[in-house]
């Protein structure tokens, strides 16, 4: 047979293959629909505290961690500056929008301030990425951590724009169509909508040429260059995409707390995002949300638990740290990895049991 000349589809296989590539495999699972329905009717189940402090917070942290998952899971680039990008977007919402610090805030309406914040934060993340792609592995972690630390100290010391260590307070949130979008139920739906949009965007792009090529860059950058790809340009584009997602998370965060201060962009907070992504699992977009849920639950309830056990409530980080150690030790792919291993194990047991029965 002749090579390179059989470029015509000879069987129905290409059609099948396309269908597989186009399909959303997630939609074939009942569990996914169940989760979607529960999330949609959550305001009728949960009270305001759970809705905002647990679920909205989970979705916001999950969105920021999702941007790290995209870079680390598909691109092999561990960026510790994703929370910094989110924090930058949050600061820009405060600077361009309205707040109690009238000498800082420019007082733009939210529908101008928000796109501005998203654009500037995406540019910020892209520039940081353009620096970081010159390095590999541990050096990428170091340079992005350095950017995060530099931004933290800068916000602490800069008063004219960032409001120094007190930050910017009482930031205005959107109100239109007669709805206060920061009241509990509307805000929950806003975060759910944004998180779902980001989740599906990452899922979709992972099977598009851009996302596939990014996974190629992760597996073998040298070969990608030998296939015609500009590897560094691809990496920078990935940082840009991730920065936009992180920026969306940052806008939600500043709307949630209505204030932003250096504490929100500290190095510790940057590392929390890494912990969230790794605990949840960085191979799939759902991982960061699972990680964020675990993190928020621990942060919220570990305090009471620890006090009941006669320990200092502020030691909740100890629990998170121990959990982090345990998960990294047992599964390199976070909670998702544990779950998959358990399912495979169960399937194998089923098979064995089934086979045994057949022979018996």
């Amino acid at each position, binding site marked *: 047979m002749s090579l390179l000349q059989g470029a*015509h589809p000879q069987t129905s*296989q290409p059609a099948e293959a396309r269908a597989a590539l186009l399909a959303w495999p997630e939609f074939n699972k009942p569990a996914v629909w169940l989760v979607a329905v529960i999330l949609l009717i959550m305001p009728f189940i949960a009270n305001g505290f759970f809705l905002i402090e647990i679920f909205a917070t989970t979705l916001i942290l999950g969105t920021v961690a999702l941007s790290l998952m995209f870079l680390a899971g598909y691109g092999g680039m561990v960026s510790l500056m994703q929370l910094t990008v989110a924090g930058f977007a949050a600061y820009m919402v405060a600077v361009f929008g309205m707040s109690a610090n009238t000498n800082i805030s420019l007082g733009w309406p939210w529908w101008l301030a928000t796109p501005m914040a998203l654009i500037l934060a995406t540019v910020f993340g892209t520039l940081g990425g353009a620096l970081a792609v010159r390095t590999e592995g541990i050096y990428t972690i170091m340079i992005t951590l350095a950017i995060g630390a530099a931004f933290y100290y800068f916000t602490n010391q800069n008063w004219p724009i960032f409001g120094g260590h007190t930050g910017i307070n009482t930031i205005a949130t959107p109100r239109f169509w007669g709805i206060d979008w920061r009241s509990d139920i509307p805000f929950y739906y806003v975060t759910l909508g944004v998180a779902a949009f980001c989740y599906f965007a990452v899922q979709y792009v992972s099977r*598009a*040429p851009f996302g596939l090529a990014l996974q*190629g860059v992760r597996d073998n950058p040298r070969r990608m260059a030998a*296939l015609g790809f500009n590897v560094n340009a*691809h990496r920078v584009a990935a940082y840009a995409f991730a920065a936009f997602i992180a920026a969306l998370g940052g806008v939600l965060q500043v709307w949630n707390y209505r204030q932003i201060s250096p504490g929100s962009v500290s190095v510790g907070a940057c590392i929390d995002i890494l912990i969230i992504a790794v605990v949840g699992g960085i191979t799939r977009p759902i991982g960061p949300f699972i990680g964020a849920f675990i993190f928020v639950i621990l942060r919220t309830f570990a305090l009471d638990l620890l006090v009941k056990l006669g320990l200092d409530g502020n030691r909740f980080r100890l629990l998170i740290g121990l959990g982090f150690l345990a998960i990294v030790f047992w599964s390199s792919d976070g909670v998702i990895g544990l779950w998959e291993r358990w399912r495979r194990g169960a399937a194998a047991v089923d098979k064995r049991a089934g086979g045994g029965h057949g022979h018996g």
Partner: protein
Amino acid sequence: MDSTAPRFSAVGAGAALELRGVTRLFGALAALTDVTITVRPGERRAVLGSNGAGKTTLFNCVTGDFPPSSGTIRFFGEDITHFPPYERIRRGLRRTYQISALFPGLTVRDNIYLACRGVSRGRFSPLRPGANDALMHATEALIQAVHLTPLREQRVAELAHGQQRQLEIALALAGAPRFILFDEPAAGLSPTERRELIDILTSLPAHIGYIIIEHDMDVALRVVESVTMMHNGRVFKEGLPHEIEADPEVQELYLGAGHE
């Protein structure tokens, strides 16, 4: 040598690949010294030489994996000496690697799809391929051509060595290659797989030229029309396969042990 003289003196725009005085230094070590090679379009040539003769370094300079320390490289008349690798690939140059350089986390089909996408537009496309995407057809055709159809949904990490070598070649055939560099494609293949490899190489369209590095003389001399013999980073001899095989100096240097 008279009959072969014009073949090797082809110059200028007529050549597919033209190296002039290419030298590559690693610190004080000269991996390539003043290498001048000219290959016609469609010509198939073997590069022979013992380990450390500079064969793979030669490939790396041509594809731009690292640049030569001095000298010029022309590809179909265009000076590509300072081009990044991807610009050379987009002009129709391809290569395979001695140690398979694949994407183990992706499926066979995604590997080949990436190869097809790399040499066409839309590398950054955030949109999934449409129902009638030409590259998907090209991908499926290429999978069939290298006999990997049953394995197309498998992750590459799960493939056997021989199958990975087949995929390695498939990646170099994507798009419209004009010239291919094969770096020991038969390494680690079984006799059957070697025959399949020879079939693939000999059935390539006539306009596609290649250079093949191959230690297995049975493979190498069956699929080429000319041979360049390298030694210590220099071109040692050029000629027709039977001339090189019969050359006493070459036998002493390289063929000696294996062909006595």
